[in-house]
């Protein structure tokens, strides 16, 4: 030991008699820590590449739309269809980042350290979901808001886009909650991040493929009513049908037609059921992990 360290030791141990804040503070700290991690902040430079690249890609259509509005004086991309059009980017972001929120804590067994502190298991799951939800919301809401500000500044003749913007914001909240819950729940089942990424992306590809194939088949058979239901299999169109079109009466994304009548109610129920199922699965998963 060098001399300087010897001197430092002489300060002796100091007790901490400052404030000890409650569980809420700890949950908030965990949420912020996880949210930063999702965007690679506080991690290596390599961990920042994918999230920021995807944020950039998400911003592109907004920027291009503003440019079109400024130059050609024509409306670009609609607010409510933004998420559905960019669904692949959102899905890739979810798949690449959701496992980061949960997998390392399981793989490197950090979970017992959290549980040996005042936070409970439900607090932990809640913080992780809140972090991923916030990340997904930001990913979608920031370009939408930029687009909105751009459109307000350019001030095209005709209707103000406020209603459409607010609808898309409500939609963004639902997209964020549903996607984060599904993504984190799927990712939590494996402590390996790579496997988690693959599972989440597989879930997205499967649902979107099944929904498209089913729609095409039913439509070719001339069964348009049944075909409309097929869209609901894809979580992106599900939220669009339930919230943006169903509740707020927006124009369906990508000229897809959603089931009429009870369709909205069913879509809302499916959406809520998926969220509830994911959260339940997560809590059960962590009960099991904690008891080990």
């Amino acid at each position, binding site marked *: 030991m060098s001399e300087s360290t010897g001197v430092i030791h002489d300060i002796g141990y100091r007790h901490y008699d400052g404030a000890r804040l409650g569980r809420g*503070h700890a949950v908030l700290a965990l949420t912020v820590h996880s949210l930063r991690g999702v965007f690679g902040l506080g991690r290596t430079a390599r961990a920042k590449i994918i999230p920021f690249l995807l944020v950039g890609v998400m911003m592109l259509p907004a920027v291009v739309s503003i440019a079109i509005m400024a130059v050609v004086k024509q409306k670009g991309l609609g607010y409510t269809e933004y998420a559905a059009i960019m669904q692949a980017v959102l899905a890739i972001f979810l798949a690449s980042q959701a496992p980061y929120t949960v997998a390392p804590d399981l793989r*490197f067994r950090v979970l017992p350290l959290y549980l040996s502190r*005042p936070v409970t298991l439900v607090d932990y799951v809640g913080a992780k979901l809140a972090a991923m939800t916030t990340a997904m919301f930001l990913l979608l809401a920031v370009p939408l808001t930029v687009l909105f500000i751009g459109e307000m500044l350019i001030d095209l003749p005709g209707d103000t886009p406020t209603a459409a913007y607010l609808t898309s914001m409500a939609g963004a909240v639902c997209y964020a909650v549903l996607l984060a819950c599904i993504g984190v729940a799927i990712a939590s089942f494996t402590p390996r991040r790579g496997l988690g990424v693959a599972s989440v992306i597989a879930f997205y590809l499967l649902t979107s493929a099944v929904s498209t194939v089913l729609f095409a088949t039913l439509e070719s058979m001339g069964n348009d009513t049944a075909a409309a239901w097929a869209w609901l299999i894809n979580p992106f169109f599900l939220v669009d049908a339930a919230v943006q079109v169903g509740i707020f009466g927006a124009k369906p994304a990508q000229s897809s037609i959603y089931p009429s009548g009870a369709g909205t109610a069913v879509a809302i129920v499916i959406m809520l059921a998926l969220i509830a199922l994911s959260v339940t699965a997560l809590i059960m998963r962590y009960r099991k992990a904690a008891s080990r």
Partner: protein
Amino acid sequence: MTILATEGLTRRFPRVTALDQLTVTVGPGVTGLVGANGAGKSTLIKILLGLLEPSGGTAQVLGMDVTTRGAEIRRVVGYMPEHDCLPPDLSATEFTVHMAQMSGLTRTAARERAADVLRHVGLYEERYRAMGGYSTGMKQRVKLAQALVHDPRLVLLDEPTNGLDPQGRDEMLALIRRIGSEFGISVLVTSHLLGELERVCDHVIVIDGGKLLRSSAIGEFTQSTQTVTVEVEEGQDALAARLTELGETVTFHGRMLLVHVRAPETFDTLRDAVCELDLSLIRMEQGRQRIEDVFREPVNV
């Protein structure tokens, strides 16, 4: 003052009974919890942290019942697990600050405490590097730091010397001793090596198969089972006979003789006997008590 107390504590798992009617009391200072693998040490720690419900009996930590006031206990208790628990892509500083915040410290206080504690456990410049590249010794230090960062009143250390080389082991034990004395934090430390705990503990609890085998102050422990190992070149039979004649208790242990120390005079008797018989003495060593000795003892008594 009682730091922790259990009363008839029982925990049954579907296939095994991990703790069986365990009644112990632990006072301030450093307490060792010794037992072989699967003796119930980790189960006991989990129950004390309020993370596992006991199947029967009660347990109190710092006067709080584990089943009803788990969160309050976890606020003032630190825990260092036996297994690896460090995310490799964070630095020791970031990780310790985060863990302090998780215990309810503000970010500013967490930073200050993390810097303090990391220095106390002996991590200096390397604390800014990602932990993935740390040696086992450094990892053990960070694990200890995160258990101390919120200035707990009690720390539960599960096998802190696991995987360390002899020097790292000594440093860790010295650190544990300092936590108990200088820092004024009570320590419950588990190990399967009694000899190791002898050096730092005030009190030792031995459990086996979830049952209490023994709980006593370290002084009584070494006294009651003190032996001296004697090795001579030839004629250990003659020496054994002579010593027995003089009223000492002697047992053979391979080429060595184990002599029970009744009183300090035993050493004199031993020296005289070796001289009288004109034997070449190779070594005489104070018996290092091992866990096996404790397990053997009830049979002998």
